[in-house]
């Protein structure tokens, strides 16, 4: 029964599809074309996620060859000590910046959407801060906010208003970072909203106008609902953006506890002089989980609207 069938059967059997010369060539071409990029992504994006989890279970000083296993101690320490403060700061920062960027961005887009002379120039101008170096922008605003020689302080004194201690106290420091963050990101929201506005059908607006709906009513009953996919997209991208913000905080308020967001704490614990590799990895893992949750919400709700293919 167990004859060596291969000798007789092999030449008759058709070769599997994946063994055809063209398929085989395609296989190698694919590896050559896409392989390096995929390898880089696996090594520098995927591996760190898993290695963070491993590091987060260690008491390990960055640069030290030895470390010992401490289980969940890093996480427990975070939640027992600074979690309340850091997560609250992150939440406040995110809510303020996202809310302000969206509301002001929408208002700006309504203006940009009107047929006005020079609004293409204005559109480019308000978008510009979004592409500028966070470090450069941060320095400019440090100069403006300087409590003694800053132009803002000089103007506040001229009109007899108190100058908040922007750099010394937690509250004003957070407010300052929020203002600059919104300044930098507002144009992005406005331009995205503008694209959304231009897809609101004009005949719908005309019909409402004929029916006697005033501008406010039209805005709240037609424009805003029609823009809800845009709002949702911006909500997610702006949340992700502010969760990751680093440049402004590092330049403007590097040591102020009022602006220590979760992301900034990841950096501070590892590279701010403490060299706490394991602890920082635990924070990075928490940050990653938050980013995944936000992104999953997006994928879950926008799947039907954003086409990846």
């Amino acid at each position: 029964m167990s004859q060596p069938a291969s000798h007789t059967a092999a030449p008759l059997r058709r070769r599997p599809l994946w063994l055809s010369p063209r398929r085989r060539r395609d296989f190698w071409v694919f590896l050559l074309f896409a392989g390096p990029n995929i390898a880089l992504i696996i090594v520098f994006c995927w591996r760190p996620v898993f290695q963070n989890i491993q590091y987060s279970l260690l008491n390990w000083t960055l640069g030290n060859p030895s470390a010992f296993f401490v289980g969940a101690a890093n996480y427990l320490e975070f939640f027992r000590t600074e979690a309340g403060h850091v997560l609250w700061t992150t939440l406040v920062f995110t809510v303020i910046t996202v809310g302000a960027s969206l509301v002001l961005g929408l208002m700006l887009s309504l203006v940009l959407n009107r047929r006005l002379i020079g609004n293409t120039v204005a559109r480019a101008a308000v978008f510009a801060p979004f592409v500028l170096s966070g470090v450069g922008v941060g320095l400019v605003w440090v100069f403006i906010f300087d409590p003694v020689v800053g132009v803002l302080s000089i103007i506040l004194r001229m009109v007899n208003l108190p100058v908040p201690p922007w750099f010394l106290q937690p509250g004003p420091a957070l407010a300052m970072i929020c203002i600059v963050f919104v300044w930098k990101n507002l144009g992005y929201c406005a331009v995205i909203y503008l694209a959304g506005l231009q897809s609101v059908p004009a005949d719908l607006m005309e019909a409402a106008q004929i029916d006697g709906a005033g501008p406010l009513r039209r805005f709240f009953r037609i424009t805003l609902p029609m823009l809800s996919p845009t709002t949702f997209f911006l909500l997610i991208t702006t949340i992700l953006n502010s969760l990751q913000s680093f440049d402004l905080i590092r330049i403007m308020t590097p040591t102020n506890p009022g602006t220590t967001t979760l992301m900034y704490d990841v950096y501070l614990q590892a590279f701010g002089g403490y060299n706490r590799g394991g602890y920082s990895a635990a924070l990075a893992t928490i940050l990653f989980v938050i980013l995944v949750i936000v992104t999953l919400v997006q994928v879950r709700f926008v799947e039907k609207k954003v086409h990846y293919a």
Partner: protein
Amino acid sequence: MSTLDDELNGERVRMPRRTRTAAATRSRASGRKAAGTILGGYLPLIVATLIVALPLIWMVLGSLKSPGEVVTRDLVIFPHHPTLDAYTQANHEVDFARLFLNSTIVTVIGSAIKLLLALTTAYALVFVRFPFKQLIFPIILVALMVPAQVSIVPNYTLIAGLGGVNTYWGIILPGLGTAFGTFLLRQQFLALPTEILEAAEVDGASHFSRLFRVVVPITTPTIATVALVTIVNEWNDYLWPLVITNSAHMMTLPVGLTLLHNSEGDVSSYPVLMAGAVVVIIPVLILFAFLQRYIVAGLTQGAVR
């Protein structure tokens, strides 16, 4: 009727009644409309533009001032004797020419490799047969979700272990894997008519020449978009270069500016800091001014369709 109506009627004496009232209503409406256009249109437009522009103008003015014009509690808007001293002083304190060179090297090499990788990966994903190809795209997409912020400690350990601290390759390598460009180009390639590539395949063109002779020439706007966004991101990149360099000789511009900021404690150094900000901001601003169409398109891609 209203006084405005009476006035207008008085002026246009010989008009038939119906036309007169119509014209009056129209001009009253257009008067209100003009006021609305100014208050609800031009005024906010100008205010928004000024809010963006003034800090940047203030930066340039600040860089041209002398320390004495900055260390004052009075408002000095224009420098009395515009001077480039701040730039020479900045160059003296941190080697600006060197920082600029480092940033340029990192940006040019990094962007070139990223663009090439994005092109070949997107082409392979769309046009080359491969088993389980559907499973590969998500691997790349997830990278969009893992920012440098999450991966600094493991990447630092790896690169530092390989001796990459204070080297160009150490700065460039971890950021090379590109999801953004691949994603954008893949979308563009999927929209191409397949006949063109089938014709090239029948002619016996290799994948390599199909990519560079057929696909690239007809997708140049998207490639330009990816290239520009990549260049801007590389130039502005801060966190990773900050972590992986500690010698002033190997720092990029944003990192070097941090050094300048830290070393300069007192307020008289603002002109020097503004000179630094000008050097890092103005090149991108110029690029943006001329090519903003591509940059905006790239950065807002995927939002509305």
